[in-house]
């Protein structure tokens, strides 16, 4: 009798485990932890709870299944409020066709924040919070000894002149087990429009454009971290309907 119970429990456990793993296929569990924020605020460390994250950024092929199923997000039908004229402009046709398009596995770019958000929600996921993304991206490449390897990847990336949308070659996997958080494309985060500085909202005359370049740069925790400056400045320059040739996304899920 006892044996039967145990067996039933084991079967159940297997079922639970397999259903969890199939739900989160292609995702990696990031353990909870903390990182040093780039913009100094009231805290020295930002705590991040454990969450699931896509192992790779969303590809053209994956995004095309979403568009096929949701025509209102097609190049033809999308409302200008949700994406500018360059939305998916690298696709040969309105409906991406895998046979005639060789870069299905390349990260999808030219997608707006609204489209990225809708894609993740369609998948039962969400866009990462800025803190989640920064934490996940702070991990060093697997096997590296110090942060110089990561800085090198980023510096090489910035200095490359090619703007190819066909970059299917994975560059590096980090200690968390996720691919290419740097070195290939920029990625949307859910709260890209959060106020990333100590700018006081009581100021009479505000210049949101100045939020980054003005007070934020005085509050950088490492003023020599040039690559991070660029990332934060880039993010601060975005609007929700913008599409950029090197800007894609990946999704996350709360644990």
């Amino acid at each position: 009798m006892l044996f039967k119970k145990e067996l039933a429990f084991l079967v159940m456990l297997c079922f639970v485990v397999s259903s969890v793993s199939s739900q989160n296929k292609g995702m990696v569990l990031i353990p909870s932890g903390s990182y040093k924020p780039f913009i100094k605020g009231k805290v020295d460390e930002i705590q991040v709870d454990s969450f699931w994250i896509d192992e790779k950024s969303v590809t053209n092929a994956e995004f095309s299944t979403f568009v096929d199923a949701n025509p209102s997000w097609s190049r033809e039908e999308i409302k200008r409020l949700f994406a500018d004229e360059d939305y998916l402009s690298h696709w040969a046709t309105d409906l991406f066709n895998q046979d005639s398009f060789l870069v299905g596995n390349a990260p999808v770019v030219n997608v707006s924040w609204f489209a990225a958000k809708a894609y993740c929600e369609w998948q039962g996921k969400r866009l990462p919070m800025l803190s989640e993304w920064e934490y996940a991206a702070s991990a060093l490449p697997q096997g590296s000894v110090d942060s110089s390897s990561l800085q090198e990847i980023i510096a090489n990336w910035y200095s490359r002149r090619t703007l190819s949308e066909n970059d299917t070659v994975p560059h590096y996997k980090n200690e968390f087990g996720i691919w290419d958080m740097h070195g290939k494309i920029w990625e949307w985060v859910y709260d890209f429009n959060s106020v990333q500085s100590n700018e006081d909202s009581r100021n009479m005359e505000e210049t949101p454009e100045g939020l980054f370049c003005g007070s934020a740069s005085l509050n950088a925790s490492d003023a020599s971290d040039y690559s991070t400056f660029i990332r934060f400045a880039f993010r601060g320059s975005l609007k929700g309907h913008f599409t950029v040739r090197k800007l894609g996304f990946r999704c996350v899920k709360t644990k």
Partner: protein
Amino acid sequence: MKNILFIMLTGFLIAGCNEKKEEVKQCCNTKNEQKVTKDLIDQLPGTSVYQLDGDWTSHKGKPLKLNQLTGKPVVLTMIFTHCEYACPMMVNDLKMIEQEFSSQERNEFNFVLVSFDYVRDKQERLESYAVSQGLDDNWILLHGGESQVKELSVTLNISYEMLENGSFSHTNRKLVLDKQGRIVYSQNGLQTNSEPVVEAIRSLL
């Protein structure tokens, strides 16, 4: 592969239909009203803020979609009622703007205040805020979920961040929307010159 796609597509279509039915139940009473609402959405320009499809609740407890604001120009801003300094100043700014119009003109456009504070600014709180601030019927205060607030803030280019004590650090920005929800004018800051805002509204009346 094609079959799977077809099944998925069918599933999605069915789900889509169901969703629509529910929406209809919530928002409209008669067939005629349904048609009018649908026509309004179809007619909205692609850049209209009212393309945002989220459900909001007004301070008077009325469920509302932004497209129901169609038909009158709107002065729109985002605030939170626990805000002690910046937001009362913002509301004051808007009152100053209101004073520039005759009582008849005031009926021809709305002030819409959307709260960042999806946790604390529920309907009752917004209602008492409207009373304490002496806001007339042409003022509409809206409460919505976190995702709607985020989408609207992104649309309006308003940055914000929830602080640890539950209050918000945010851009102070007023926007004037035309009768179809397109942004025609926006202004950053507090205690700013009300003249351009007044002019923008006048041009739409």
